[in-house]
């Protein structure tokens, strides 16, 4: 059980008196794509933010690469290899695409930096086209790509992505998920996604269902019944 | 502390210094200052903390009351009480104008306009020194001529008590409750149909008038006013009164006024290091006791009492 790369035990996160996450257990293995699914307000974003360190933890432990990081700062967690791509506020708005990426490779050494940036341009050719454009003039979909690009550029071992498909047209969603799959294969990273879109089933190895701050199920894709997931959203599991 | 006890306690505390009039002297003089600034402190308490209006210009409204009284009495020969009243009526004008001018703007810099006014005003006084005496200031005998110092002191206390009681009462009325609502959630208040602008203007008017009155009283008591007395630091000290003392309870500003006026007096022996301590204490209190002294002292009392029991 303890070979998991990232393991969360009995995590409780509260906003004031309201518990957003209640005693959650969660784990991720190396090179997996793990999805966290659930309806609005289930606590998916909170879970990712707690792992990344943007939100303080009331109780519980987060173990990553053998360290207990639940009290670590965001910067320290990033140095260890965890990075979050938030749902909003995920780009540097007034810098060019090029600069956004240049800033994000800051923790890597010289050679790796160019490699990383080239790779981002490879997967998202449109970012290369628009590399001199200011980030906040890009379209919504392109900004999403830039955000993912920033995530790649930061070269973290585990990428946490908060609802990447939100606001994207269905064709783009499929494309995005395929790209994530490709990233996982190319770079051997681990990706944790929170999603409402059921297409995540196409790429996730495992799914956790989250509702009202509690885990409802944790299953490998093969074992998962689509109905179980549907019920999560339509609320018949309680 | 129960609400009613709190109010009675506050008023009671305020009346105790009447005894100082018996002995007079230094104690009477200093407490007179405390009371005069307490008036301003309650104004700041009312306008900034209870009604949520970001106004920093209390030294200006106070100065208008003070200078207005002198100018009208000395230069235009008006009867004293009339000058005091008229200047106090003028004082809110400034606040209301600033409010209306910045009504559409948002953010911290809006509150800066009133602060800038507080910086500007003494400089204006200096520039007009032919009328106002600038830094050398103006002397004024006013009420002390009629009443003598002891009676004047008693008057100051009674007026302060009346003002404190007025504000306490006001916060309980429908208007006060609406202002509290506006300060907590402006948009909600508008959404339920309250004309927030009207109420805010009313708050500025009341605050300005009382502050002006306090300033008029001030100049009668001290017999002197100059631009140095209304420097920007004055408005900061006034603002600190409810901030340090605690704005959530009625006697909070009392503690604050004691602090702001007495601590400098107590630190006179270490005059060279005075400002350092003053600033440091402010920082420590603001950071560690963000609710001010009063609620924390209250907690301390409760803890001591429960330990005895």
């Amino acid at each position, binding site marked *: 059980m303890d070979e998991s790369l990232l393991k969360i035990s009995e995590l409780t996160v509260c906003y004031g008196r309201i518990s957003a996450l209640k005693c959650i257990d969660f784990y991720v293995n190396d090179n997996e794509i793990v999805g966290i699914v659930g309806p609005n307000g289930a606590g998916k974003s909170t879970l990712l933010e707690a792992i990344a360190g*943007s939100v303080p933890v009331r109780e519980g432990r987060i173990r990553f690469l053998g360290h207990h990081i639940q009290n670590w700062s*965001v*910067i320290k967690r*990033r*140095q260890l290899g965890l*990075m*979050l791509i*938030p749902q909003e*506020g*995920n*780009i*540097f*708005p*007034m*810098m060019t695409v090029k*600069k956004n990426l*240049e*800033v*994000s490779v*800051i*923790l890597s050494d010289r050679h790796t930096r160019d490699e990383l940036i080239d790779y981002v341009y490879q997967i998202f050719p449109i970012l290369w086209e628009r590399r001199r454009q200011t980030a906040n003039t890009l379209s919504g979909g392109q900004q999403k790509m830039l955000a993912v690009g*920033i995530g790649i550029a*930061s070269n973290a071992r585990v990428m946490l992505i908060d609802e990447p498909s939100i606001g994207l047209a269905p064709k783009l969603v499929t494309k995005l998920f395929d790209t994530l799959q490709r990233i996982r294969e190319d770079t051997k990273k681990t990706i944790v996604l929170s999603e409402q879109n059921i297409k995540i089933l196409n790429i996730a190895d495992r799914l956790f269902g989250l509702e009202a701050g509690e885990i409802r199920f944790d299953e490998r894709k093969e074992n998962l019944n689509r109905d179980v997931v549907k019920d999560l959203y339509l609320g018949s599991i309680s | 502390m129960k609400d009613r006890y709190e109010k009675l306690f506050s008023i009671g505390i305020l009346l105790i210094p009447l005894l100082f009039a018996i002995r007079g002297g230094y104690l009477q003089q200093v407490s007179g200052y405390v009371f005069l600034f307490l008036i301003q402190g309650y104004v700041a308490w009312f306008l900034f903390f209870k009604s949520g209006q*970001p106004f920093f210009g209390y030294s200006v409204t106070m100065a208008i009351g003070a200078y207005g009284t002198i100018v009208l009495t000395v230069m235009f020969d008006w009867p004293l009480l009339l000058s005091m009243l008229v200047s106090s009526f003028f004082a809110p004008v400034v606040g209301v104008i600033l409010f209306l*001018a*910045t009504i559409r*703007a*948002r*953010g*911290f*810099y*809006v509150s800066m*306009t009133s602060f*800038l*006014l507080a*910086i*500007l005003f003494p*400089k*204006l006084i*200096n*520039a007009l*020194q032919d009328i106002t005496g*600038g830094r050398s200031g103006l002397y004024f005998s006013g009420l002390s001529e009629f009443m003598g110092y002891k009676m004047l002191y008693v008057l100051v206390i009674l007026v302060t008590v009346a003002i404190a009681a007025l504000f306490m009462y006001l916060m309980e009325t429908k208007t006060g409750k609406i202002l509290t609502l506006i300060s907590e959630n402006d948009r909600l208040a508008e959404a339920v149909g309250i004309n927030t602008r009207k109420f805010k203007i009313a708050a500025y008017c009341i605050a300005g008038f009382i502050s002006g009155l306090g300033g008029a009283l001030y100049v009668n008591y001290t017999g002197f006013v100059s631009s140095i007395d209304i420097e*920007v630091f004055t408005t*900061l000290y006034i*603002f*600190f009164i409810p901030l340090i003392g605690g704005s959530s309870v009625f006697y909070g500003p009392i503690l604050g006024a004691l602090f702001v006026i007495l601590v400098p007096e107590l630190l006179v022996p270490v005059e*060279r*290091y*005075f*400002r*350092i*301590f*003053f*600033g*440091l204490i*402010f*920082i420590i209190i*603001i*950071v560690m006791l963000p609710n001010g002294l009063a609620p924390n002292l209250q907690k301390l009392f409760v803890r001591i009492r429960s330990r005895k029991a």
Partner: protein
Amino acid sequence: MLLNGIITGLIMGGILSLPVLGVAVIYGITGIPNFAIGVIGVFGGFITWYFFSVSIGFAIAVGVIACFVIGYAVQRILLTPISEKGGDSTLFFIITVSLGFVFEGIIRAIFPRPNISLELPRLGTVTFAGFSVEGFKIIALVFALGTLALIRIMEERTEAGKSWQATSQNLKLAKLVGINTTQVFSIASGIGCALACVGAIFWGSLYNLELSSGWDLGFMGFIVAVVGGIGNIWGGMISALIMGMVISFSGYLLGGEWQSVILYFIVILVLIIAPKGILGSERSL
């Protein structure tokens, strides 16, 4: 006569622009309005004066470095932690003003007669268009422009500069990407105070430094920065030059006492009409 006014204005603007840049840099990167940098800068000026006998260069270096360290420490120990816990501008206003009191007290405690004048070497005169100006007076302006250019270049070219930009545009993401934002904040504060110190040194050599100068410089620096759009260093520079001329012309036309009155009056007007400053953007480098 007009030209004289303009030149005086530019000189004044040049001196003013240093604390203005200080405010703009600090606010631009950290989002904190720091009202104490004027007093801290004047403190540095006093330190410089103290070491004047050793050598002028040394004295200036000591003063500026001292201010940098103070700014760094204050940000690191006091301001950043409060900002992490969600301080708002009004709170920072109160705290930094109190901090100003503290440093004012320190000046008074250490220097028994807090009214000094710094004698910087006069670098001869520059003549053009029939006017002669002491070369020295222009240095402040040149220095300020140079600093501005330097900051912009650093932002575009160097790694550190890009981190500053990133930090000021999206603090949360900057942390996530691994930028040491705490360090960035502290350095920004240090630079801001160092700039204020240079401004105080110039001010002290043209006029004199006393206890209240810290507040004058600090408040003036702040309001001029706000007029230019507070985090905006270009705006601050332009605003400083314009304000310098306002001061100079109102001095000619109306006399000394009215200078500050007009200045503050204009700032209030600007705030009312265009709260985001004349260049319209608040927080950007």
